């Protein structure tokens, strides 16, 4: 590992100033960064430890409802937070999938996002909740839809001198639900071969008014599934519909073949995971799919 300067700023302004250095990197939990540095995959001249900055380390309820989760908040804290469990249970459950307990106690939500792995477990549930990313830079802060942050494996639109501050979750709509399911060969401590997050909002008559389907590990970034989403809107959920939507999502997926699974296998998984995640949403909404399928 090359030598580096270790900085522990107390304010966002200090952090942003330090990050102007081209070889500076943000340290939150370090579960990706330190492993990458030790394996010589990343050279860093200045480490900016953001865990002493108050705005980055808390879960803040917002006046209009919803919450802002500081980028340095750990996965363990997210999974145990009562405002998140109450309004965003799929996010709490996704946080429990990141590594094992030791990793969850260190890994931050912001790191899971900024590491920009196509398999990042927290991302599909957040995107399904229409999360926004709040980013601070030398000229102030900007806020953009989380899904627009990703441009490739390990690459985001966050620029040098910028810092992810928080993930903003708007209050969930009435009659809506989110679910995230992934497939791993091992039950825990594994990277998703494929994952699917789904969001459904029903109108008062039980018809799907809005839908989001977000896929993991089947493209260079976490990705929305437009065919699947279009097929859902305006319909009443039935077993047959959910199975068909799963097949749409499989067509939306852009997987590659690698050591963890072939592209065909990943597409098959997406069809099943999407169908089951939608079924989970229907269950949360108190719908009896068997009855509505008759």
């Amino acid at each position, binding site marked *: 590992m090359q030598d580096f300067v*270790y900085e522990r700023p107390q304010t966002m302004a200090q952090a942003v100033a330090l990050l102007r250095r081209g070889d500076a990197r943000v340290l939150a939990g370090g579960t990706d960064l*330190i492993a990458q540095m030790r394996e010589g995959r990343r050279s860093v001249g200045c480490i900016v430890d953001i865990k002493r900055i108050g705005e980055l380390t808390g879960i803040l309820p917002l006046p209009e409802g919803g919450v802002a989760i500081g980028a340095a908040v750990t996965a363990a804290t997210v999974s145990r937070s009562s405002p998140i469990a109450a309004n965003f249970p799929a996010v709490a459950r996704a946080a429990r999938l990141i590594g094992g*307990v030791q*990793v969850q106690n260190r890994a931050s939500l912001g790191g899971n996002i900024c590491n920009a792995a196509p398999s990042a477990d927290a991302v599909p549930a957040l995107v399904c909740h229409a999360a926004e990313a709040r980013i601070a830079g030398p000229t102030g802060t900007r806020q953009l839809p989380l899904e627009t942050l990703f441009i490739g494996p390990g690459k985001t639109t966050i620029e040098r001198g910028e810092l992810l501050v928080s993930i903003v979750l708007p209050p969930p709509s009435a009659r809506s639900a989110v679910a995230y399911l992934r497939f791993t060969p091992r039950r*825990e401590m594994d990277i998703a071969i494929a994952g699917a997050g789904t969001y459904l909002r029903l109108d008062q008559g039980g018809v799907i008014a809005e839908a989001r389907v977000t896929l993991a590990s089947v493209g260079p970034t976490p990705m929305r599934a437009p065919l699947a989403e279009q097929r859902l809107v305006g319909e009443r959920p039935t077993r047959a519909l959910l199975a068909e939507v799963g097949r749409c999502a499989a067509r939306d997926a852009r997987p590659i073949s690698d050591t963890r699974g072939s592209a065909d296998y990943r597409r098959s998984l997406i069809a099943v995971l999407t169908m089951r995640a939608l079924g989970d949403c229907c269950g949360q909404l108190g719908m009896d799919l068997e009855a509505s399928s008759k």
Partner: protein
Amino acid sequence: MNTLITCTVNGEERTALADTRDTLLELLRDRLGLTGAKEGCGNGNCGTCTVLIDGAAVCSCLMLAQEAPGHDILTIEGLAKADTLHPIQQAIVESGGTQCGFCTPGIVLSAKALLDANALPTDAEIRHAIAGNLCRCTGYGKIVEAIHSAATTLAGR
């Protein structure tokens, strides 16, 4: 570069001259001589480097020594009281929940963090708590049994 690092390890304030690049694991093993925590994979998969930071299990190989000041660190060396093993250690011995022993310090500490938060965990909760600790010898059954048994002992006090 070298730097002086002061932190609380096993209840004592310790100061060591460390390399600025040292991980917490290197600080513990190479500077403080506490070799109970091991390096297995070095990337957060195996859990043999597990220590408790303010009561929470973490991989000490993925934390910089420079992050340690201000935190309370517990290693396996801090668990037994003089010659008396901690009930979790005793239960591991009695249940045969160890063979080569390489993973054992990490597993005992993961179990301690679990039982401190959840006095009588279920099988599933125990297995979740030690999912980040790989054991290639035992098959986990006797480890889970030992943690149940330690839970009962600790709850009965």
